[in-house]
């Protein structure tokens, strides 16, 4: 993973609540065994409409998706953040995220940014070419008028993102603790053989 650096981008607004993972990447594209090539099917069914925002200039070369409440609800498919990042997104701003989507995103350098309702509403009113700055280190969003908005990120995920390290490396170092747990819980850990 690459270290997650500060950036500035236009917003791609999707003013809808409860955008589910079946819309982000329909299940028929999950028969792949690789992570590649999912971007071309991002929001595939909605892209059938030529006026859908990803088909317009505004949807191109922007790195921040602005969506309604409970973004990413539904299935656990990590293909959703894979498709979003391959398309070029590095952050999604909403008032809330589904749990599994949020966890999956943080592991793929896609930062789920939760903002208060008033800031969320204001972001939707910004002009098309307005740019917003994301700085993960200070956990701040900077709006074009200079307003700074802090957003929450758990400190562990933040460190992983900023330093470009994945979780597995950290967990593997916990081997002595895992082995000790297994030794002390042998009665309740049922082997299947």
């Amino acid at each position: 993973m690459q270290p997650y650096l500060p950036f500035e981008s236009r917003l791609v607004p999707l003013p809808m609540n409860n955008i589910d993972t079946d819309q982000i990447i329909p299940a028929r594209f999950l028969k792949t065994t690789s992570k590649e090539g999912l971007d071309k099917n991002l929001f595939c069914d909605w892209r059938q409409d030529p006026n859908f925002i990803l088909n317009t200039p505004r949807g191109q070369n922007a790195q921040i998706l602005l969506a309604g409440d409970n973004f990413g609800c539904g299935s656990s498919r990590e293909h959703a953040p894979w498709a979003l990042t391959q398309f070029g997104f590095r952050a999604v701003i909403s008032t809330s995220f589904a749990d599994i989507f949020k966890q999956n995103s943080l592991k793929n350098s896609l930062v789920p940014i939760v903002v208060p309702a008033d800031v969320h509403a204001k972001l939707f009113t910004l002009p098309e070419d307005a740019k917003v700055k994301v700085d993960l280190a200070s956990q701040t969003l900077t709006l074009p008028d200079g307003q700074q908005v802090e957003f929450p990120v758990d400190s562990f995920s933040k460190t992983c993102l900023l330093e470009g390290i994945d979780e597995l490396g950290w967990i593997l170092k916990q081997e002595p603790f895992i082995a000790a747990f297994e030794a002390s819980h042998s009665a309740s850990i049922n082997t299947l053989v």
Partner: protein
Amino acid sequence: MPGPLTLSQKVWANHLVREEAGAPSLIYVDLHLVHEVTSPQAFSGLRERGLKVRRPDLTIATTDHSIPTTDRSLPILDPIAANQVAQLATNCQEFGITHYGVHSEHQGIVHVIGPELGLTQPGMTVVCGDSHTATHGAFGALAFGIGTSEVQNVLATQTLLQRPSKTFKVQVDGTLKPGVTAKDIILALCAKVGIGGGTGSVFEYTGAAIRALSMEGRMTVSNMSIEAGARAGMVAPDDTTFEYLHGRHFAPMGADWDAAVARWKKLPTDEGAVFDQEVTIDGDSLAPMITWGTNPGMGVSINQAIPDPSTISDALERDAIEKALIYMGLEAGKPIAGHPVNVVFIGSCTNSRISDLRAAAAIIKGRKVNPNVRVMVVPGSMDVKRQAIAEGLPEIFRAAGCDYREPGCSMCIAMNGDQLQPGEYSVSTSNRNFEGRQGKGGRTFLASPLTAAAAALTGVVTDVRTIL
């Protein structure tokens, strides 16, 4: 000493491997279920790093999402699906994992086979790269869906980094009336709290109506916890749980069984434990439920009208209803009952167990399905299929004009060719009515097996209580 704890808090505490300030907790996983869709990239990751599967003896795989539900002796025609299915077999062989593959006598939907083989047990932590892993919470296990990166982490280390969820009590009082089922309880909960209502929480289902459910009914309820936003949903184990498990293939035996039951009896929520949130549903007044919209929270009682967005003040909420009505081709304010149906699907990890097939067969027996309706019945596993044959259920379905198929996820997720055509309406016993979920342009009404069977006979959305 800690204060009184809830069921989920106890299971969590029993699985803490390490807690360190500034990091999420490291928790141990007792059972890792694997299927073909969300695992290939995880196995590739292991290979790239030169890692093994730490506990193949705690890992079980099956093939369910991408396989056809037609004759199993035929090859899989879709080359991409065939490759994915073959990849799982190869991965399991290479890493030493038991795999109930296409030709196994135990093949089936992952959330059907775990419980029926006795793999899922109270007090366990159970994970799978699949959001309906919540199903296993019916046994008092802490069971939740994970992404593929986490699948890789669990394969490599048998642990997960997690933060504890909030606790959310769902109390279902009273006694369900004839025609009202476990599915109606969970659809009512989704309608009440909404699709995001349980986000960040683990549900604990309790109350007389939950206690009265069979294990299969409890699985139906827990299964759809994720449709109300909760990552997991649990039921405290009781005699119903123990009776279901006793004698199953992977259940403990003899003295081990007695020791396990003694452990399991300590799991129920302590007197005085406090939940972060609570909601109550009145089982006595519950009617059969059906969804009208494009998420599982958009549901009504079978005799209610389709909502009118003009009465909603919140703009995004109003837009969502309007958009859903356009997609569904429905008119605000009209009754949902009587709406024509093209397809009935009885199956999925929510409702494909033997009791679901029995319930549908009891309605359909000796009758003919409406000639305008294509009715698909898909048992959840090879074990369910065998039991159904022993009870003569396939003949009942076939004599009525149903298409009775081989086990798999089938039209719940429409990855395998079983799908709606654009514009078609289904009454489906599955768990999601998202746009395109059952096929591009398809329109889904979620309901119970009884309501689905009623629609199969009449060709329209029907209150099953009128034909009981």
